[in-house]
């Protein structure tokens, strides 16, 4: 009930706020300026000449950015949805039950995060070739699950480690069907985890390059493919323009889920409990 102010904690908050702004908000600003610049040289604070050339190219058919935006959104949403579908039961098993070989399974799930993608991607390519999944959107969605699933599963197992299944028993004993139990009891309890894990999954899928290029075989062009072309060739103006479009969905999703991402949310607190 006390209302005393915790000054050290508050100044820590202000400090972390400043750090966050410097790291997350400031870097895109030069990128945005670059997208309208025609040359921007040291020591000018702002470009001397401005142009819409980069944006004109970005929205042209040649660039294909808009088509690729939709396909990238679709792939990332589908990969996120599938990650939730697999990650929630997997996280429940890992977080709530003890079974033989659990450590091994955990290691397997973590492996894609530890092993560099490039080391396995050629092997995956030949497996997908064999299964006829290369050059298709389906194939790209499925291959994105490899890097997205560890995040989803880890978050969910953290959630389930702090979850009391007795609530479910109670609901069942009061006559709720298994589906109703899941819908009214389990789901609300694990929702923060689904949102945080889903956000991770979406952003991880959103930023895939080499997996998309190899499995998509150039028929499935996602935004990172277009972006890296220009980022690696030093075209800051076009990189800036495509980059602005590239960060939009991330920002939208971040804003929509912001309230679940605060320190008080169970999802964040559950980390490290696995």
């Amino acid at each position, binding site marked *: 009930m006390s209302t005393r102010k915790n000054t050290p904690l508050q100044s820590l908050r202000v400090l972390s706020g400043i750090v966050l702004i410097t790291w997350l908000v400031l870097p895109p600003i030069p990128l945005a300026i670059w997208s309208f*610049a*025609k*040359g*921007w*040289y*040291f020591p000018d604070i702002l*470009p001397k*000449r401005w*142009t819409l*050339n980069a944006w004109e*190219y970005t929205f*042209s*058919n*040649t*660039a294909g950015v808009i088509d690729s935006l939709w396909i990238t959104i*679709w792939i990332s949403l*589908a990969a996120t*949805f*599938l990650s939730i*579908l697999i990650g929630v039961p997997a996280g429940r098993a890992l977080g709530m039950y003890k079974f033989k070989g659990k450590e091994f399974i955990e290691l397997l799930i973590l492996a894609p995060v530890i092993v560099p993608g490039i080391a396995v991607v*050629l092997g995956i*390519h*030949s497996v997908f*070739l*064999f299964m006829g999944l*290369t*050059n*298709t*959107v*389906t194939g790209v*969605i499925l291959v994105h699950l490899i890097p997205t699933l560890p995040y989803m599963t880890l978050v969910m197992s953290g959630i389930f480690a702090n979850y009391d299944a007795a609530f479910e028993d109670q609901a069942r004993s009061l006559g709720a*069907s*298994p*589906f109703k139990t899941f819908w009214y009891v389990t789901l609300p309890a694990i929702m923060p985890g689904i949102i945080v894990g889903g956000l991770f999954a979406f952003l991880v899928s959103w930023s895939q390059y*080499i997996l998309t*290029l*190899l499995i998509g*075989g*150039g*028929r499935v*062009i996602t935004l990172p*493919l*277009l972006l*890296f*072309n*220009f980022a*690696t*060739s*030093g*075209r*800051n*103006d*076009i990189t800036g323009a495509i980059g602005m479009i590239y960060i939009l969905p991330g920002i939208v999703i971040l804003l929509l889920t912001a309230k679940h991402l605060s320190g008080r949310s169970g999802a964040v607190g559950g980390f490290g409990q696995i």
Partner: protein
Amino acid sequence: MNKTIKTTLFATALSIASVNAYADTADGQALLNKSWNEIKTIAKGGEVNWFMWGGSDSINQYVSEYIGGILKDEYDITLNRVGISDTAEVVNIVLGEKEAGVTDKGTVDMIWINGENFRTMKQGGLAYCGYTDLLPNNTLVNWDNPSIANDFGVPVDGCEVPWSKTQFSFTHNTATTENPPRSIPELIEWVKANPGQFTYPAPPDFNGAVFVRHVFYHAAGGVENLLGEFDQAKYVEVSAKTWEILNDLEPYLWREGKTYPTTIAAHEQLYANSEISLTFNYEPAGVGIKIENGTFPPTSQGYGLTDGTIGNTNYTIIPFNSPNKAAALVLQNVLLSGKAQLEKAQPDVWGAAPAIEVDRTADDVKADFAKIKKHPKVAPAEELAKYALPELQASWISAIEKGWIENVGR
């Protein structure tokens, strides 16, 4: 009390790529016995997937809009340009397909290629070969010219078709550096007199490696001593001198040589920001394009070296397992045409030097070639051509790159 257990099934709708219906021309041998008209007929209504470096909007526009337009309007072929950051990525796709036994349904129909990647394709049996005489515009190519018939010292043997020629050139900012060094020995002296004003991208960056080869040629007392197969004894002798020169230079480089830019893009950024005074690139026309699109200061000027700069030819190649070989052949023929090479040579389009003999083109094309006004800031082609140096065989190149990393980069 038992209750009926309901299971909820989640269904995901996944899109499945449509199957193409036009003629499959994966069998390259069968095409060799056909006439050009037959090939055009087979290719009609098809598509061709061309994988190429995608980091230049002007090149992308030339390919997608100009070349793609011709293919659509005159041949009813859809060109799908696939932009990539590194050609080795595509070579890996083809290699992976070969290892997985995909011999007729490959992903890639054509690649913009040369050097090391070509060697990999040729030696790995990944290229479709022996078709060049089919192309009507092949008569415009001078296969007797060794710099066309050899790709970085590897004989082409009908496995690829030349597209453009290019030559290494330097760029200085006339506002800050009026008299740049015009040969490798001058450059070495200049760097020592102007500490912190020069650096080069660390090999294996493509352009950085070419710069190191210029120093290597200088240390060898001329490229004549290095032509042909890799010679270990020669390499040991020349490389020792080269590393000595470059290590002596290190303290005078940008940031005392403690670090090197890792890409040519980063190098050009340093130049654009006036952190260093000189830059260079294998694409001489790039200076004009970069001034126009604002990457470089307008006071930039391209120039060649009096002891020569290295030149090469770049090509297009058709993978052995391309299912659209007929359409790829039509595309190669269009690229070789006088009209397309002329458009590519226009300074506001790309400014790339033609790989065909302009003398062999139609009179009106010839006249238009003569009318081309180079961007004034681009090193004059004649000046560069006068002192053109050949590329070494890929075995030399990889040895020099490795040697630099071990002895200078460390």
